[in-house]
């Protein structure tokens, strides 16, 4: 895990080595052109930065040596020290030693091989000063064990890379994986042992490559979480609230772009928690809570997912308010709302235009609703849920993929075509007897684990003629037993009847091209090893489609 100290150190070394190379270059040029003021100014700038950076990070030997070199160059600039062969040697030795020190900052047992180099630098300066003051006590320079530079050229072992380049790399890996799966599939068909061996090797290598590229994009969640203590303090001051923030899980790693996308969302939820969740101190005291409000921000990683939780011990969300809001804002009629499960009702806070905030403050309620948060999380294939207990507090849980490239998906067949649903949205798979499905209100429903769930016959939905489409009639179903994939989105469940379940597989989702990209229910497309096209269903879109129907 890369701590900030480690990061600083790597940056320091990379930059210092750059300076070291430039110093060598400039001094060589200066040797040929001793009166070049521009070169001298540049040498000063480099030594100056080296000194300041080393001092800041605590490498005293480096900052001292840079300082001594600076002093010597100061005399050269003021023409008090001639740029003679002897001086040049001393300066080069000094620069070489600087390089040695930089390369050995990690080496605890490192000892400066030849103290004479530093001594000589001091002597050059002393002698020049002596001469300037009219003295003639010139001291003899010591011989130094010269570093032979040509023997060991060292390049920095740290490179900086634009995230754009990593994005491109990841796209290429995605393409490669599709082709790899195709080759694997062909190799199975052909049953050729050499091809099988090569493709098995190819499989391992691409897998390794994929994880290496994904790994290169990982950053610690701490890079975002560590900004929160100060932000929370500022909002709390403005809102006149006392808040204690607890942060944990900073070391969990996540794709940099995913972290970027959720940054605003997390900030929004945090502002809500402080502005609307945590009660003022006097109110808290009255209800017997500690005066100081408690907010915890935590991250956990669970296989290929990262879970971020933001919990406050504030007043919680009043479900009666939410139910009233659903009716008032015209989402659902009152009689339907009273039958909604609590979790279902609560999920409406993520609908556009649904806001419970009564007052607008500087920090929250600026027209950005939780629907924006939800869209951001959806866009990266994540999930968000809210749990709240009136009087006790609210918890937002974000389930995020660690990487955006590859998704685990469930493959299935409908009318001999392949489809996939990201595992992120699948809840369970059940087999149900057709007789246990009920026809209610133009749709089929099933009683699954004590929940009434709307069930959609995908063949009819995807392939039926819009004029005669009937999703509410069991007569269209084939067979006595139906395979149902239960998907969840925003606390709402939907059952999808498929013809045949296929397998679970990692897929690379490609966006659909125009004009088919306008079809909302498909989130993208992938190619299977067999070369067959497989459409990826967009669970949020399908759920929304049936919700508006309701």
């Amino acid at each position, binding site marked *: 895990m890369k701590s900030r100290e480690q990061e600083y150190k790597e940056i320091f070394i990379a*930059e210092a080595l750059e300076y070291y190379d430039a110093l060598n270059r400039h001094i060589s040029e200066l040797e040929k052109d001793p009166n070049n003021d521009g070169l001298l100014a540049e040498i000063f700038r480099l030594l100056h930065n080296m000194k300041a950076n080393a001092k800041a990070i605590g490498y005293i030997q480096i900052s001292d040596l840079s300082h001594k070199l600076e002093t010597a160059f100061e005399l050269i600039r003021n023409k008090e020290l001639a740029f003679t062969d002897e001086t040049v040697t001393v300066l080069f030795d000094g620069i070489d030693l600087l390089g040695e020190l930089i390369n050995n900052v990690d080496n605890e047992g490192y000892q400066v091989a030849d103290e004479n180099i530093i001594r000589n630098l001091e002597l050059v300066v002393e002698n020049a000063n002596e001469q300037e003051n009219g003295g003639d006590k010139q001291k003899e320079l010591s011989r130094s064990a010269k570093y032979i530079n040509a023997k060991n050229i060292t390049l920095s072992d740290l490179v900086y890379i634009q995230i754009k380049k990593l994005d491109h790399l990841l796209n290429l890996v995605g393409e490669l994986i599709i082709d790899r799966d195709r080759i694997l599939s062909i190799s199975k068909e052909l049953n050729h042992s050499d091809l099988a061996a090569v493709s098995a090797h190819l499989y391992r290598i691409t897998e390794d490559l994929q994880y290496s590229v994904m790994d290169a994009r990982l950053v610690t969640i701490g890079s975002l979480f*560590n900004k929160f203590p100060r932000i929370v303090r500022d909002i709390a001051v403005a809102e006149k609230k006392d808040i204690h923030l607890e942060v944990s899980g900073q070391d969990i790693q996540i794709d940099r772009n995913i972290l970027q996308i959720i940054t605003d969302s997390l900030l929004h939820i945090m502002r809500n928690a402080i502005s609307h969740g945590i009660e003022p101190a006097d109110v808290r005291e009255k209800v017997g809570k500690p005066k100081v409000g408690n907010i915890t921000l935590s991250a956990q990683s669970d296989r290929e997912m990262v879970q971020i939780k933001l919990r406050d011990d504030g007043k919680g969300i009043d479900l009666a308010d939410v139910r009233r809001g659903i009716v008032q804002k015209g989402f659902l009629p009152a009689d339907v709302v009273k039958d909604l499960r609590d979790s279902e009702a609560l999920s409406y806070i993520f609908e556009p235009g649904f806001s419970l905030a009564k007052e607008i403050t500087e920090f929250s309620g600026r027209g950005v609703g939780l629907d924006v948060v939800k869209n951001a999380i959806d866009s990266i294939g994540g999930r968000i849920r809210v749990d709240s207990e009136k009087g006790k507090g609210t918890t937002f849980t974000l389930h995020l993929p660690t990487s955006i490239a590859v998704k685990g998906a469930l493959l299935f067949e409908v009318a001999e075509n392949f489809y996939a649903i990201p595992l992120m949205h699948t809840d369970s798979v059940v087999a149900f007897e057709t007789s246990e499905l009920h026809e209610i209100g133009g749709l089929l429903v099933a009683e699954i684990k004590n929940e009434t769930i709307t069930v959609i016959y995908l063949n009819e939905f995807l392939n039926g003629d819009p004029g005669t489409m009937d999703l509410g009639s069991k007569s269209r179903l084939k067979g006595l037993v139906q395979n149902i994939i239960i998907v969840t989105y925003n606390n709402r469940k939907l059952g999808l009847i498929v013809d045949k379940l296929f397998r679970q597989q990692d897929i690379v989702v490609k966006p659909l091209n125009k004009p088919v990209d306008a079809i909302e229910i498909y989130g993208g497309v992938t190619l299977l090893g067999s070369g067959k096209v497989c459409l990826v269903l967009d669970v949020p879109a399908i759920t929304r489609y049936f919700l508006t129907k309701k």
Partner: protein
Amino acid sequence: MKKRILIVDDSFYMRTMLKNMLTDAGYEVVGEAPNGQTALQMAKETNPDLVTLDVILPDNTGLDVLKGIKKDQPDMKVIIVSAVGQEVIVTEAMDHGALAYIVKPFSEDKVLEVVGNALKENA
């Protein structure tokens, strides 16, 4: 709202440290300029509340950047970041409208104190 800051320093290490300190403290770092020309361009484009300005820059002295900023955007607050031994330049910079200065190596507390004070003043 978040105060917006432009960092001008030729050292990536220094810029990174300053940026981390300032963003951790809730400021928004709108840009990082490694030289004078970029600094002047960024100051115009991003119009920050405050500029932290290193006085020794590769193409230009920090002093020229300060003069350039003060000429076109006189209300922009500028803090000088310098090292020991540059007192002459710092004094001159203060004469040309810099609000305060920080001496390298700096502590986080010092940076936040000077930046906080500079942004508080209704200059």
